[in-house]
């Protein structure tokens, strides 16, 4: 008895589409990354809850990170996600112009955020050695910067490909899958921001 039959006519056609494969793969990548970030955020809460011996923040007359700048940086990255969404809607409607402009804006916003974020981190009066708050703050923002760097690589690729006319209304898989990452890249600072709101440096 034979377990397997080959029907030559259908030989190559795979039941699952290539697109679904790539989407699920990207989703899992984002999930794994999100899991990593969740553990970093948990570490922040943990250090806050269990901080031993008042080491949470050594105020040697130093200022905490400036709220206004934090909010602005958050707004920039969220705006970038909005621009990305607009670009995506543009190509779905078949409008190459909206796609290109939207992607370019999204990319520029991320670059601006990255530069500003790095400067902001450099401006702080505290360093990694000033207690667990300083450690966690720098660590979380640093990881965010790493995300932004990956985002720049992906955004650059998408923009170049968009200007090369690689995307059509029917086929823009790259845009969809990079989108998963892009929205996650914007969501992560929102989570961070909420953390700082609910578990602030000073109570």
């Amino acid at each position, binding site marked *: 008895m034979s377990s397997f039959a080959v029907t030559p006519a259908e030989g190559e056609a795979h039941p699952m589409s290539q697109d679904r*494969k790539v989407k699920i793969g990207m989703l899992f990548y984002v999930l794994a990354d999100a899991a990593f970030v969740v553990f970093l955020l948990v570490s922040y809460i943990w250090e806050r809850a269990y901080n031993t011996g008042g*080491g949470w923040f050594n105020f040697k007359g130093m200022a905490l990170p400036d709220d206004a700048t934090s909010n602005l940086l958050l707004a920039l990255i969220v705006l970038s996600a909005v621009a990305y969404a607009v670009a995506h809607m543009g190509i779905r409607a078949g409008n190459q112009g909206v796609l290109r402009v939207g992607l370019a804006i999204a990319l520029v916003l991320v670059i601006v955020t990255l530069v500003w974020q790095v400067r902001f981190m450099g401006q702080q009066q505290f360093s990694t050695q000033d207690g*667990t708050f300083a450690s966690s703050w720098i660590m979380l923002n640093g990881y965010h910067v790493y995300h932004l760097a990956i985002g720049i690589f992906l955004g650059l690729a998408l923009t170049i*490909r968009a200007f090369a006319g690689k995307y059509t209304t029917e086929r823009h898989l790259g845009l969809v899958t990079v989108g998963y990452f892009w929205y996650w890249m914007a969501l992560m600072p929102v989570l961070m921001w909420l953390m700082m709101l609910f578990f602030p440096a000073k109570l």
Partner: protein
Amino acid sequence: MSAAHAADTPTYNARQLLVPSYLTGAILGIVGFLIGHWYVAQYIGVGHDEAGPNFTEQALVIGYILALVGWLIGIGAFKYPITWLLARREPDHEEDLRLAGAGQGWVRYFRFTTDHKVVGIQYLVLVLIMLGLGGLGAFLIRSELARPGALLYPPNTYNTIVTMHGMLMILATITFFIGPFGNFVVPIMIGARDMAFPRLNALSFALLVPAVVIFLSIPWLGLGQSAGTGGGLQTGWTFYGPIADQTGIGATAFAFSVLLAGTSSILGGINVIVTIVTMRTRGMRWTRLPMTVWGIFGSALLVAIGTSSFTADLFLILLDRVWNTSFFYVATGGNSVGQGGGNAWLSQNLFWFFGHPEVYVIVLPAFGIVMDLIAIFSRKPLFGYKTGVIGIMGVVVLSFLVWQHHEFVSGWAPELRFWYMATTELISIPTGLVFLVALGTIWRGRVWLTVPMAFAIAFLWNFVVGGLTGVFLSDVPADVQLHGGMFVVSHFHFTIVGGSLMGFFAAVYFWFPKMTGRMMDARLGWIHFWLANIGFNIAFLAIMVAGLQGMPRRVADYDPVFATPNLIASIFAYVLIAGVAVFFFNVVYSWVAGEKAAANPWGALSLEWQVPTPVPLENFEQIPVVTTGPYDYGEPAAATPGIEHAAGGEVAG
């Protein structure tokens, strides 16, 4: 083999074969390391403030990062991302074939090759090397512990050996199913031409290589520091917060290398999951997957979700060491650097949230493989297919809910212990289902006692001892006495060596003919089997006795009351190691001079045995359509185990 493929196989000259290859990767990697290390040491770290970042460590880390980049450039891993970035021509089928190693002979094993079968063999060899080196560690451990007294080396060397043995073995065992078999066998089993993401696949192997190289450099780091002041690695594989911050520079290499290996296994795990979810051929329903696929699937799920927690832990430890953050520094302002406020339990929880699922990562594929082999060699359908799947998946779900059982005496959340004790004991129920299926399948079977079957049976009785000792440990009052002692060591070697390693041996003997085209030598196989099983059981029973007596783990020197069981354990551990040495010899010998294997030497029904040996580049001439399950044995159902190959391959039987 198909003539069509042979005709358009390209040919290459030496330069094309060598650039890019692992050779250029290694050269650029070394150059990268030297540049990074030298630059930081010469220009950034000069005249730095004692209290500031630790530049000795920073130079090492930057060196490693550049080494990694150099390696990836050198092997050509960045080629595709860059062409994609620049919106160049998409690679066509021909280029894909070239990347898959068509027509490159043995050189393809030393390149960034995407063919899942090449990656599978690469993994197999690397995993065997890791197992050998880990076993060398076991040999050194048992030699030191043979008699009381610090016999052979000072305690810091001993601690380094234990740490490296533990982590190297764990890395090897995490990889040793998903890597070789998940790559080589699973795609063929489900009727696919390759993994879902062949480049990602090649990348995950390419990340493991530098990880292992960096890991093996640990003993040479901090060698200049004398024993009294802490060269080496004093942490144990658990790498808990404060001690990992404190110990010698080897810990930086450890953290970096394990981070890399973790990333590699996350990527590999995702690839396996997506392959199984999306690449099953027509008719390969979820209920027709061989159990091996289920086991590897569950294991990959755990890897993809759980490993992040450990990588986060290692990341924080690296920051603590290199930039003097204070996630785990508990100093209250008394020291010069002014850190403080960190918490040690954070590290434990991040570690064990990964660490517990990780032990099932090791054992789930073995569950699957053992159920598979027992069905095949008993010529019977699985006693309960759904039962087996529920068993595996039940373990997957429960394994995220039990991690605190490693911290029963840590003082963290003692009021939650009743809950973790309950979830831990519950895991015996899905595990028990796997045993039910295995025992029910072998019962009244036409048992064919081959070497792989023998190892599958040995799995059953060895693992049950490990599982039952686990139930002892899950009981809080008993664990208060047993934790941190040799009883725990005995428990997990019974589960890992007696369970997973036996499953691995079974898998190697079973799939070796398909992977290499040659049978493993059966006589050597039986010698290996008896030496390994006798040695293993007596050695670790003796260690269990030492544990009951109250001998702590990770000690270079111990009270003379524990002398007798330790001597017995060492002698029989040598027997075990001799057995595994026979295995290593057998692998090499059979690979070179073994008997040529037929396409389906075991008369198995699953898909990988229906393709010719050696497996052609794209596995199937035509993608098969599956009409029956892999276990359609049994008297009324099937007449003979012989399989007629669908697309004109050899007929086995």
